[in-house]
């Protein structure tokens, strides 16, 4: 069996030709879609469960606590127990709620993240779809989750839900700009919007090192604004517990609530993996130009491990933000975006374009 943990292209090719030999092209496509769908669903479950556990542990350590430690070794099975509990919780029917939209909203949130994860390169050849406008596609698709949030708030017939949803809308509309501009800075440097090309271009150094100061500023801005985009950290106005009980998912219970909860963590994962791919080289090992021996040692570590490590680093940064900073007021939130992040970002794009024009980057 052709299998190589350093390059999945041969494996996927092998599966593809095997299916083509067995059935017609139409059914091949359907089967491949199904396989990828099931794999991503499994991945979702694992990532969601693990991230909830990681968040609770990180939060606990930052607050001088222990976190979950009763269920299983180091509390590892805590989230599984929580999931089983959530599956048994009654799905409460809300009087005067818009039933159709109320039931639809969690799926929209999940589907938006599902579409975004398809374009993310996990390792060489381990990517569901390699669009030539991958970056644009991910930005466009990941902002669709807010429709689900708005629908949830609107259809719940609850003032807290509605206020939370509206806040989330205002927040995502403004911070989407910063996310886009921060990525455009790197797209200028890479000269491509295709994820595989972007990763390949970082073979001799990650963009955060290649692009001098502008790339670093763009990374910081991307971290900040993507934290806001996922409704997390100091920007969790949409579900501000102290003001809005639970914000847009106040009325949801059981597995529908779990969908929102899962989507929050999956969105964090997606945003972190975009940051890892665009700024930190994706699955590309850490290379220093000229040091052949060092580069060979780094090549020995499988790309998937590199990818997971970088993503985990970015996720840890986002958790660190969340458990350090106090929540922003809505006016502070908009001031931060429109008066600070956006102007700095625009100047940053100009500087980056100038650097690329002059050929000053590595």
């Amino acid at each position, binding site marked *: 069996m052709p299998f190589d943990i350093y390059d999945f292209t041969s494996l996927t090719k092998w599966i593809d030709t095997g299916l083509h030999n067995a059935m017609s092209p139409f059914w091949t496509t359907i089967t491949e879609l199904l396989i990828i769908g099931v794999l991503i669903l499994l991945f979702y479950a694992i990532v969601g469960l693990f991230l909830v556990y990681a968040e609770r542990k990180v939060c606990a*350590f*930052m*607050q001088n*606590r222990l976190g979950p430690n009763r269920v299983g070794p180091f509390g590892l099975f805590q989230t599984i127990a929580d999931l089983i509990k959530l599956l048994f919780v009654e799905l409460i029917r809300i009087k005067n709620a818009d039933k159709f939209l109320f039931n639809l909203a969690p799926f929209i949130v999940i589907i938006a993240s599902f579409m975004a994860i398809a374009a993310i390169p996990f390792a060489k050849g381990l990517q569901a779809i390699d669009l030539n406008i991958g970056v644009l596609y991910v930005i466009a698709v990941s902002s669709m989750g807010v429709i689900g949030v708005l629908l949830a708030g609107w259809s719940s017939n609850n003032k807290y839900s509605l206020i939370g949803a509206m806040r989330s809308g205002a927040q995502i509309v403004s911070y989407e700009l910063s996310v886009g501009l921060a990525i455009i800075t790197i797209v200028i440097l890479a000269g491509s919007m295709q994820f595989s090309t972007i990763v390949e271009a970082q073979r001799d150094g990650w963009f955060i090192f290649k692009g001098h100061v502008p790339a670093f500023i763009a990374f910081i801005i991307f971290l900040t604004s993507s934290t806001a985009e996922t409704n997390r950290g100091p920007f969790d106005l949409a579900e501000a517990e102290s003001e809005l009980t639970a914000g847009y998912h106040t009325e949801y219970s059981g597995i529908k609530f779990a969908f929102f909860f899962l989507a929050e963590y999956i969105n964090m994962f997606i945003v972190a993996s975009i940051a890892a791919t665009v700024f930190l080289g994706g699955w590309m090992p850490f290379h220093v130009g000229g040091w052949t021996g060092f580069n060979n040692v780094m090549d020995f570590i499988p790309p998937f491990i590199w990818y997971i490590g970088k993503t985990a680093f970015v996720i840890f940064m986002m958790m*660190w933000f969340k458990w350090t900073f106090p929540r922003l007021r809505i006016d502070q939130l908009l001031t931060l975006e429109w008066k*600070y992040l956006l102007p700095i970002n625009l100047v940053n794009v100009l500087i980056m374009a100038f650097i690329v024009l002059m050929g000053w980057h590595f």
Partner: protein
Amino acid sequence: MRSIIKYLKDVVLGIWSLLKGMKVTGSYFFRPSTIVTQKYPNNRKDLVMFDRFKGEVIMPHNENNEHKCTGCGICEMNCPNGTIEVISKTIITKDGKKKRIIDKHIYRLGMCTFCALCVKTCPSNALAFSQEFEHAVFNRALLIKQLNKPGSQLMKGVE
């Protein structure tokens, strides 16, 4: 120009203060020794409580089974809940004088709010707090305790 400098200064100072906050939480995260949570039922053997912890009122006795309680009843008067009851008796000392000493110092743990008024106001420092906190019993009568040990004497020099 001045406004631009102020703008940049705001940005730098803002980031600096955020980094300061992250330094605090980060230092906690990377030093697990700062964790204060106790895994209580597991570490029961070597659990160390704090000096100021108010477990229950006790009357310390020395090795000769002597305590400092003169039976004055100030603790009983000061107790807001009527938790303490001092039962005294009168004895005849060797030189033929009548003297009031303590017979029983009754302490009802079930009624105590651990306000420490008795410990603070005791003129001869006869009472103290122990660090025992596992008070659960199966019978309410067990919560009524006699603090002076049977056969104990007043410590010499305490009057």
